[in-house]
């Protein structure tokens, strides 16, 4: 309801500002259900720490602000994590067929846009490419939820309960673990994806 005028005319924006004064709770958080997103700056997503020629690290992807601070998106990500069978391989973050996602080790980067790219493109040691299966917004939501598993989203936005058998402390209670780029060990060692 509140976001109806978001991209509207100047008058609408004014109206919105006025109404915000009275219904401030409405702007606590925005829920975009299937709004078109700005295209991911995919060419700028890097996974190496080595930037030849002292190149400048690209700025954080604008999706971080939109998704990492948003309880609705993260909660949706948690639901989708089950529905797209992510749980089947990564369990509730501890891993199984796939690697753990609740630790600080990140083969292909642990920032939001890096996780988004891993989900979209797949990774050679067994991560399927979900870009052709899951709509873009849902992939961002999944990535934001994965970030919450390591406590890297605001506590207020992280899920604080499970709908099913509690297997571990919830994401809201997970201590923050900044991602450490570990890099994928060579495939010939038979490593997990």
């Amino acid at each position, binding site marked *: 309801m509140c976001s109806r005028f978001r991209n509207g005319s100047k008058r609408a924006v004014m109206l919105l500002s006025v109404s915000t004064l009275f219904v401030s709770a409405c702007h606590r958080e925005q829920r975009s259900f299937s709004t078109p997103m700005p295209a991911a700056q995919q060419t700028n997503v890097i996974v190496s720490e080595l930037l030849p020629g002292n190149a400048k690290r690209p700025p954080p992807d604008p999706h971080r602000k939109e998704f990492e601070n948003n309880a609705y998106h993260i909660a949706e990500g948690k639901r989708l994590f089950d529905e797209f069978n992510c749980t089947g391989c990564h369990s509730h973050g501890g891993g*199984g*067929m796939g690697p753990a996602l609740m630790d600080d080790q990140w083969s292909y980067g642990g920032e939001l846009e890096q996780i988004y790219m891993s989900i979209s493109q797949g990774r050679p040691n067994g991560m399927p490419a979900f870009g052709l299966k899951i709509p873009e917004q849902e992939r961002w939501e999944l990535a934001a939820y994965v970030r919450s598993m390591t406590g890297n989203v605001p506590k207020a936005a992280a899920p604080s309960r499970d709908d099913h*058998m509690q297997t571990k402390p919830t994401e809201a209670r997970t201590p923050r673990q900044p991602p450490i780029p570990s890099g994928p060990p060579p495939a010939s060692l038979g490593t997990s994806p």
Partner: protein
Amino acid sequence: MRKHPVIPRALPFIALATVLLTFDASSQAVPTPPASPAPQDDGTWTMPAKNYASTRYSSLAQITTENVKNLHVAFTFSTGVLRGHEAAPLVVNQTMYVVTPYPNTLFALDLARPDAPLKWRYEPKPLAAAQGVACCDVVNRGAFYYGGRVYFATLDGQAVAVDAANGKEVWRKRLGNINLGETITMAPLVVKGKVLVGNSGGELGVRGWLTALDADSGKIVWKAYSTGPDNEVLIGADFKPHYASDRGKDLGVKTWPPEAWKLGGGTVWGWISYDPELNLIYYGTGNPGPWNPDQRPGDNKWTSGIFARDADTGAARWFYQSVPHDVHDYDAVNEIVLLDMPVDGKIRKVLVRPERNGYLYVIDRQSGEVLSADAYGNVNSTSGVDLETGRPTVNEEKTPQLGKVIRDICPASPGAKDWNPSSYSPRTGLLYIPHINLCMDAESLEANYIAGTPYVGMNVKMYAGPGGNRGVLTAWDIAARKPKWEIKEDLPLWSGALATAGDLVFYGTMDGLFKAIDARTGELKWQFKTGSGIIGQPIAYKGPDGKQYVAVLSGVGGWSGAVVAGQLDTRDPSGALGFVSAMSDLPDKTTRGGMLYVFALP
């Protein structure tokens, strides 16, 4: 008494005396492996099960309970692979063959030269992506030597034939599709010029099958599915199951909701035995999919049971479903030991199967009739097997329900025993069963099918069963239908067992100890700490120098060891389909790394 100067003349008498003594010792005759599938031991080890009867027994007796204390490392070899090493090495023609987990490299070691240097290696280069659809670590359970070639399967679903002399590829055949979730982890069995291979993927909505390939060309001779219409299961006029519930047309379709059989599991990832006299092969089928039982009401034929098939045509002869409508992931793929033994005063041709559901079955291998089924572990999910119907009596209290957590289900999903094979010694009449003692809490959830991703629908947390020990080695007296003795192990036993004529039983633990125990008493006689946890299958062979050797692969992993092999996070007990819950201490006890260890007397 006067000494007998002519020893050869005395030998038959000694042999006879031994036989008489054996008969005397246990009022009943000791079950014997039939001679045709278990011929005289020539000191080689050409298949993981040792012989078609799957006894995994070595008649070499140089290493005994007396001298085993002197056993020492003869040589080692690093496989360079960090995942779970479940395979048995093979030894033939002065060469040892070792197949690794993914990337499934086959190494040949030259036993004729000092320290067994590498002769050659063969790299099949399977698809790396296959690692992402392997449910329970990227394991391989071994190769098979037959007619100058080594046969094995790759994780990404290919069967390969390699020239045993030089490591050159003879043929390769793609059988599985990783985009349907299919992998192959089992060791093939070669019978009468046909390579028998089955698929894995019961946790990914895969439809199970066993196929026979021409050993010379790799061409498919027949393929038998575990679900679906009779013509695809190779059920025809010869099919004569013992129990009424297995009779009827197209039960592989009718015992499922519409179309569910297409995703129904029943994968063939375990062991096959073969009786040349009856010309029958015996193997088990895996769990039905998904784990959530509410999505597949019915008996779910022909999952979680044993097939007997004609070795030439694959035509089904009989089927016994040890777990109709499985609700706990009790696959029925464990080893099948062929024995001849008296039952009620009559010699019966039987097969013996320590089943994942916790019962040790003795089944008439001609008819499929269950002669006895006795619990060998802690079981509360069922209360015995009804011999009239062949069905276990299900304890409904322990059956999962959607959205409800059911607690204290015993055994847990990996069963009272998983894939790791037991060994039978005809000298003691005991089956040495390396197994586990785990129970679980389970909550069933709706499973969503997306091809090439998991299709499970169950939240699981496992933990140690009654007694607190997670592993057990049971010496089961087959004739007496009860355990003779047990060894409790802290960690689950995930390695195979090897019994030898020196009256020793070898097995390994997940923290890396390789142990030799007295086959009659269970007394620990010797142990050696290897570099990583042991989940491999020990073997014994006669080296070119005439000495007895014992070999085993060390390298932790598998479903139970995924917590170490996959570097999983122990804070999530639901990891690795709930196995992490029971194994959170393993990372403190062992690290990964594949290494072959070979032992001998000085």
